[in-house]
């Protein structure tokens, strides 16, 4: 088994307890929250039917049905709360994955840097671990949606719900799910590719800080700001109507794509240089 895979497994192993906790919180909050929301709705319906005896069909014709999307929006805090928690945890983990090697009682970074393998494998393994954890949570969310739908169908009688509750239109229209799972696979690649670029830039900034300490911290912040400015400036110039950048939307898209690839290459090159020549424990 090569060194890179071993390092990835090590990084995943070091985070798995916290990651499992995040998954557990997501499962309990989303399923439990949706269950409580649907029970509350049914209690309201049954209470009304006790006071005014009638069928579910009569109730639906008077008060309307409860579509799956409305049920999910009523349980929004339970559904999206853990999503936000997971995003926050993974954002923190982007920094933690490097700094915990340096901080603490033992400087674990010293042992990692002394391994008889290319130092960039450390960088790649950490990047792979972050990407895997992000995609793992996205996959969990995709798998959970049919479970939510089944729970909804189990608790809400057929007379009180629409005949069809397709999941794909729900994901396409919901602002949070639409962001997590973009409408097309090409957008999925582009959005998560932009995420990989962002993580790479932050990793480079962290390596600058670890290499040059306070000066590196300033350099890292400047590097991150400069990278963001390079990516955003063509969009600002085009939307402000500047004649100097009268380009077509497709050209702007390709320009952004090109800038992204260049920034990725620069970040990886700089990171490689810092890892091989400058980083200290």
């Amino acid at each position: 088994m090569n060194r890179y895979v071993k390092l990835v497994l090590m990084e995943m192993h070091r985070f798995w307890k916290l990651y499992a906790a995040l998954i557990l919180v997501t499962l309990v909050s989303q399923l439990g929250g949706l269950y409580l929301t649907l029970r509350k709705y049914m209690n309201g319906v049954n209470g009304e039917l006790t006071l005014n005896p009638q069928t579910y069909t009569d109730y639906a014709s008077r008060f309307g049905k409860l579509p799956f999307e409305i049920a999910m929006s009523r349980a929004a805090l339970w559904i999206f709360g853990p999503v936000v928690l997971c995003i926050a945890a993974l954002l923190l983990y982007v920094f933690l994955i490097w700094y915990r090697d340096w901080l603490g009682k033992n400087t674990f970074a010293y042992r990692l840097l002394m391994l008889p393998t290319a130092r960039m494998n450390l960088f790649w393994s950490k990047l792979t671990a972050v990407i895997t954890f992000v995609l793992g949570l996205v996959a969990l969310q995709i798998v959970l949606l049919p479970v939510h739908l089944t729970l909804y169908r189990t608790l809400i009688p057929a007379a009180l719900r629409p005949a069809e509750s397709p999941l794909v239109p729900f994901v396409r229209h919901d602002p949070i799910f639409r962001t997590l799972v973009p409408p097309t696979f090409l957008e999925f690649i582009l959005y998560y590719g932009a995420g990989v670029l962002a993580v790479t830039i932050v990793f480079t900034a962290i390596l600058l800080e670890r290499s040059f300490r306070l000066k590196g911290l300033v350099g890292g912040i400047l590097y991150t700001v400069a990278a963001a400015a390079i990516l955003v400036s063509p969009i600002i110039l085009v939307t402000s109507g500047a004649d100097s950048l009268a380009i077509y939307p497709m050209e702007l898209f390709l320009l952004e794509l090109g800038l992204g690839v260049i920034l990725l290459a620069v970040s990886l090159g700089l990171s490689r240089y810092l890892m091989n020549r400058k980083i200290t424990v």
Partner: protein
Amino acid sequence: MKRLWAAAAFAVFIAISIGTYYVQASISRLPQFKLVKLDGDEAEATPLVISAQYFQLPYQEILSISTKDSKYQSESSLLERIQGTSPYPALTREYSNFMRGNPYAAQYLNDDDFLVRAEMETVRTNSRDGIFRLHVAVLDKKTNRTHRMVTTMPVDGPKYNWMRTTDVQRAGSHLKIAVQTNSATPDAASKEEQHIYDLNISDGQITADQNISFKPFQRPGKMLHTSNVYDADSTQPDKYLLLYVTVNGIPRDNGAAGGRETAVAENTVEQEYLMIYHYDTGTMDFLSWPESKPEAGLVNEIYQDGEYVLWTKMNGNEVKLKRYRLADNQLENELQLKKEDFQAESISHMQFGKNRLYLLLKTGEKPRVAALDTRDGRIVYRGEIAAKDSNGSGKQQLRNLEVHGFIVMQ
């Protein structure tokens, strides 16, 4: 080894879940519709694109329907959304470098020798006044060279609130650029003017400024409002500039908070004219709808169809159309069509094409379309929107469909 298997299983879980979702998303289609022929020539409806909304509660999906199929906004690809639409797709394809910039802010002329772009830039000096710069670009199609000119508009006349280009035509080595202006007069009634500037292509200098007089329409205590007449292909050389002129009562401030806005909203059109400016002679004529006062509740649409102008008025029950010859302002023919002529509950929208008037009709559950020859009123096409799924669910799908309007693709 155990860790490796766990990690591999996790990777497979990620790939299968995300992959399955995108496979399902690509095969999950919203209901499909199309425009089908009832009678007439199918080709007549080819340029029609009907805009609609499909209600799949709690969502509303925006879609367009043609004779071939329907296309939902939410199902459009990323590249389609990035590309967007251009008001001049053919020119953008052929002269992509020259057509850079915001095409909605400019006027274009596309003749055999040149492609011309005229655009007004506003540099605000304060909230009311401004300096206006006319940007003109001329592409010589033979040499493929572009000549760009910037001219600051003369300021010795009245101070203008805004200026915008409304048309550009060529007369030999000069360009005729129609510019609409608006200046605030002391009585607070805004004053619109239409200028025709003569610009020398070789040096970019303005050699003449003809202020088209609206005196024949001016009445004491009344305000004029002008707007351009829709021309399906405004980039083609044209001998005429058409303006729709309305005489409105001046709004009075009732003193209440926001009173002016209230008064403006209550402002009514008292008289209306169609003004025809002849570029070759620099003279103008005008046409008026026979009724002395515009009828309430009628939608007014004017359309230039080459050497003719169609002036139509429509409500849900009928359409009145007058077709004038521009060369001598003579009425060529007129039509009056009622909803019963189409076995429709009401007439909801109309659009124009070359010698064609298209009507969108409400008839029970299936919205219909009719195309008429504007020269003789003959119905050349009738069609209706149908669900591609022709079984029971198709009927429900049609009930969930709400048609908003339509356009004619040129």
